[in-house]
């Protein structure tokens, strides 16, 4: 009986995924035909979301999360290691199903990864066997775009890498690979862009340039962005809203409205409000980190 129910549910999930893929493909064809503007931003809502990897659903990684992210917002999750930032991103993306609660993108329940939402990982996830243009064209091709190569070139131009279209990813630097990954993620015109420490593996200078590039891209393409980072300055620079997360179990500790006030890096460094906010966030994260460190059974875990 249970097996039959599971089979039915799996079938339903597969149909839902196929339907969403069709919708995304239709949307992309509409964008190509000029019937629709690119990157309609979507609302993301999390209702009482908890995630536990234990079979008895104890020891939740994320617990009781209630959150609404508005269309076009740039939201950043900050917090100590292990507080569930990446887990949360995976839940929003549909890579992990929540143990309890629901995630919706524009009122559609998230049950599996769909092209309405796309992700940029910390470590480059480019397909190393494909040339740069083929990597970027993969999404449009999968969704039935009439000119995937042209679409890929358009997004490569946007990230300034059109002259590397025929190169293999292995020949590019770390920063260039992440730019290709961003172009690839944007090429399906996602409504929500998830970014899991996308600049975490880059050196300081490249990271700074990439942050500026991302801001520039946001001006031309404006999906809802959900960003995960450890870097407070990066969060303040890029975000409209910052969520500081608590650890054990992961959840929201504090919501900070940055409202894009700190987008001019050179001006904010001497700004008193910026420095106070930065210090406040660092204190919050430190408190959570110490909480994890001082857990009595930390060594036994």
């Amino acid at each position: 009986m249970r097996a039959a129910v599971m089979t039915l549910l799996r079938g339903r999930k597969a149909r839902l995924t196929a339907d969403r893929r069709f919708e995304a493909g239709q949307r992309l064809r509409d964008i190509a035909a000029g019937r629709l503007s690119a990157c309609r931003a979507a609302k993301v809502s999390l209702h009482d979301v908890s995630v536990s990897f234990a079979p008895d659903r104890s020891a939740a990684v994320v617990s009781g999360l209630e959150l609404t992210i508005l269309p076009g917002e740039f939201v950043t999750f900050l917090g100590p290691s292990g507080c569930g930032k990446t887990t949360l991103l995976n839940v929003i993306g549909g890579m992990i199903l929540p143990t309890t609660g629901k995630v919706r993108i524009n009122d559609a329940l998230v049950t599996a990864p769909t092209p309405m939402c796309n992700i940029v990982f910390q470590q480059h996830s480019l397909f190393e066997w494909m040339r740069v243009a083929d990597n970027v064209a993969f999404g449009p091709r999968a969704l039935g775009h009439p000119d995937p190569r042209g679409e890929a070139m358009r997004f490569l131009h946007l990230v300034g890498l059109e002259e590397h279209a025929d190169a293999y990813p292995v020949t590019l630097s770390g920063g260039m690979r992440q730019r290709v990954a961003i172009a690839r993620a944007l090429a399906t015109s996602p409504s929500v862009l998830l970014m899991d420490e996308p600049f975490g593996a880059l050196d300081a200078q490249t990271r700074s340039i990439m942050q500026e590039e991302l801001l520039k891209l946001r001006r031309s393409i404006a999906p809802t962005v959900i960003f995960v980072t450890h870097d407070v300055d990066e969060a303040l620079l890029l975000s409209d809203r910052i969520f500081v997360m608590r650890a054990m179990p992961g959840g929201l500790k504090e919501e900070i409205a940055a409202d894009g006030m700190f987008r001019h890096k050179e001006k904010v460094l001497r700004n008193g409000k910026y420095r106070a906010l930065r210090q406040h966030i660092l204190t919050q994260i430190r408190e959570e980190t110490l909480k994890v460190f001082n857990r009595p059974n930390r060594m036994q875990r």
Partner: protein
Amino acid sequence: MNRSGISRFFTSFPWFLLSLPALLLVWRLAADRVDNPVLLPSPNLVAESALELFGDGSLVADIKASLQRVFTGFFIASTLAVPLALLMAYFLPLRQLFLPLVTILRPIPPIAWIPLAILWFGLGDKPSYFITALAAFFPIFLNAFAGGIDVQPRHVHAARFLGAGRWLMVRHIYLMSALPHVWTGLRIGLGQSWMAVVTAELIAAQSGLGYMIQANRINLETQHVLTGMIVIGMLGALMTTALGWCERFVLPWKFQRQ
């Protein structure tokens, strides 16, 4: 050939030019010292034997017979091993069903199958096909299986987010992720079947390089035996080089540098 390939060729080639005459010199000195062409014929004698065997066409016929057996066995092995390994990598019930069998069968050397192969297929080409296929099967299978389970979750997730359906996923993600391992398996498998064909022909065939070596050993024609051995070595090296060249076309991204 790219620049690094050319420079590698030009740095290694002079050493080859040096090592070959050195080997011939040592061989010649050893043959003079032994002074018995049955125990160790001189390089001159072997060269004369090679010309003679090429001249009467028997060596070419033996090479053709051996190559046909190697490629047939290799083709059978790769046709069976690659799909089976990939299916086992992707479907857990198949893995649980077949992996214990593979674990038991794999350590049995191909030579141990020769008596059964003769009983089942008689003498001639068929037992050789069976032995060469068996020798190639396991390296191809194990490497393809490793490739199948080596697919990176981040590639799978990225492809799903990009809207890849099942067919696109299999063709562009699972197969391409496994391809470097599959290729390594094919390279090792071809080498193994080449070694196995000689073993099989020594016992279970009436043509081919292995049979030619065996027949000439009985007739104490050691120079013909050595000719056969050298041809085997040269053909093996040729196959390895050819596969190395093909790799540049099959896995071009592996030859790119930052």
